[in-house]
């Protein structure tokens, strides 16, 4: 293999986020319509490496992704050592809007997966005017906890290994091994208690079942893509949101809960038609 650089550039953005100074890691590739990508709970921007390296996408879209505070190469805020990280719907929404403003994104598309797929439903409900379109990957109105979350953060269990172990079955069994294990590695690198803190939003605070009917897709088009092997955000959960909002929904064959990371090529084959529709809006 000849050495080469990927067409991704990365910078650290300093900004006031949720009223406190933050240092946030931002990656981007391509030019055109801003496509702001939101990673899953306990992971980071590397999940979007396939998208940022695909010219079919970057020819028309400026693909951006940021590591949420506490995640990836973004720092937690000063004083983190004395706090328990807990993601809430309002903080998550505010964070996305404040990062989008700081990056001066003009009428962006936001695309999130899992917790990101849930927050786009909140954005569609509360801030539709801020986005050209929203794409929810593995998006459902609510997910009940199906194991004791305290296992994810305790000193006698390796946090990285248990987080990867918990989510490993959400990767489709037919995913290429290299991408499956890359996806798990991101989880193994997550900071202590961060995945658990994100799940506070995913399984408790972010429940939007009582407001899904109020989403108006005429104010902001909503597209839903869900992998058939995802048992966390199920196909039924996505189709229920689609039925109640009129959003377009596709169940993706051979994919699980981390489509863009576990099998980028297959996922992009489902994403491209959605991006074509957004370009035509």
């Amino acid at each position, binding site marked *: 293999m000849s050495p080469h650089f990927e067409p991704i550039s990365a910078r650290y953005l300093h900004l006031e986020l949720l009223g406190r100074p933050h240092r946030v890691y931002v990656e981007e590739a391509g030019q055109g319509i801003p496509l702001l990508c939101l990673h899953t709970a306990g992971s980071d921007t590397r999940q979007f490496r396939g998208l940022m390296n695909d010219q079919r996408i970057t020819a028309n879209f400026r693909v951006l992704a940021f590591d949420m505070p506490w995640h990836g190469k973004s720092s937690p805020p000063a004083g983190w050592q004395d706090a328990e990280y807990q993601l809430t719907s309002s903080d998550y929404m505010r964070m996305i809007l404040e990062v989008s403003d700081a990056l001066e994104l003009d009428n962006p598309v936001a695309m999130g997966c899992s917790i990101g797929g849930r927050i786009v439903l909140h954005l569609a409900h509360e801030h539709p005017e801020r986005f050209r379109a929203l794409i929810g990957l593995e998006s459902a109105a609510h997910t009940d906890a199906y*194991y004791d979350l305290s296992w994810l953060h305790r000193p006698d269990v390796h946090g990285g*290994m248990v987080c990867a*172990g918990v989510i490993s*079955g*959400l990767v489709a*069994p037919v995913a290429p091994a290299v991408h499956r294990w890359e996806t798990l590695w991101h989880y193994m690198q997550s900071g202590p208690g961060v995945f658990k803190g994100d799940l506070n939003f995913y399984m408790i605070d972010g429940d939007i079942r009582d407001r899904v009917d109020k989403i108006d897709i005429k104010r902001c088009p909503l597209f839903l893509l869900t992998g*058939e092997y995802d048992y966390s955000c199920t196909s039924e959960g996505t189709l229920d949101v689609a039925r109640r909002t009129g959003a377009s929904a596709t169940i993706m064959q051979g994919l699980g809960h981390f489509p863009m990371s576990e099998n980028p090529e297959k996922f992009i084959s489902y994403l491209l038609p959605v991006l074509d529709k957004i370009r035509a809006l």
Partner: protein
Amino acid sequence: MIEKIAGLVNADTKLVRRGRFVNTTFMIAIDDSYTLLRVEEGRVTKVAPGPFITPDYSFCLRASRDVWEKFWEPLPPLGYTDIFALVKQKLMRVEGDLHPFMTNLLYFKDVIAAPRQEAKR
């Protein structure tokens, strides 16, 4: 299927390495049929079929025969690919002292799914 687990696991040097710190006895319950599996340093050293009067084990995975058979297919049907998929649907229960299980989840998931390899042959 269950009696094949020891041979399949012990022949998989990468899996044995992943479980090199695991020393425990766990139970698999298929309907009312119970089997104890002893693990020492990642190797399955004993597979003992019940019945038992006073079984001594750390954790138990309990499901119906129909669920286990689907779980052990080479490519299980949707919803049967992972222990947590079954737990979420209340098709499987994981009981007892979960510490060895959760501490070595990536190891135990592959140990318990090992019969899928046999089914492929």
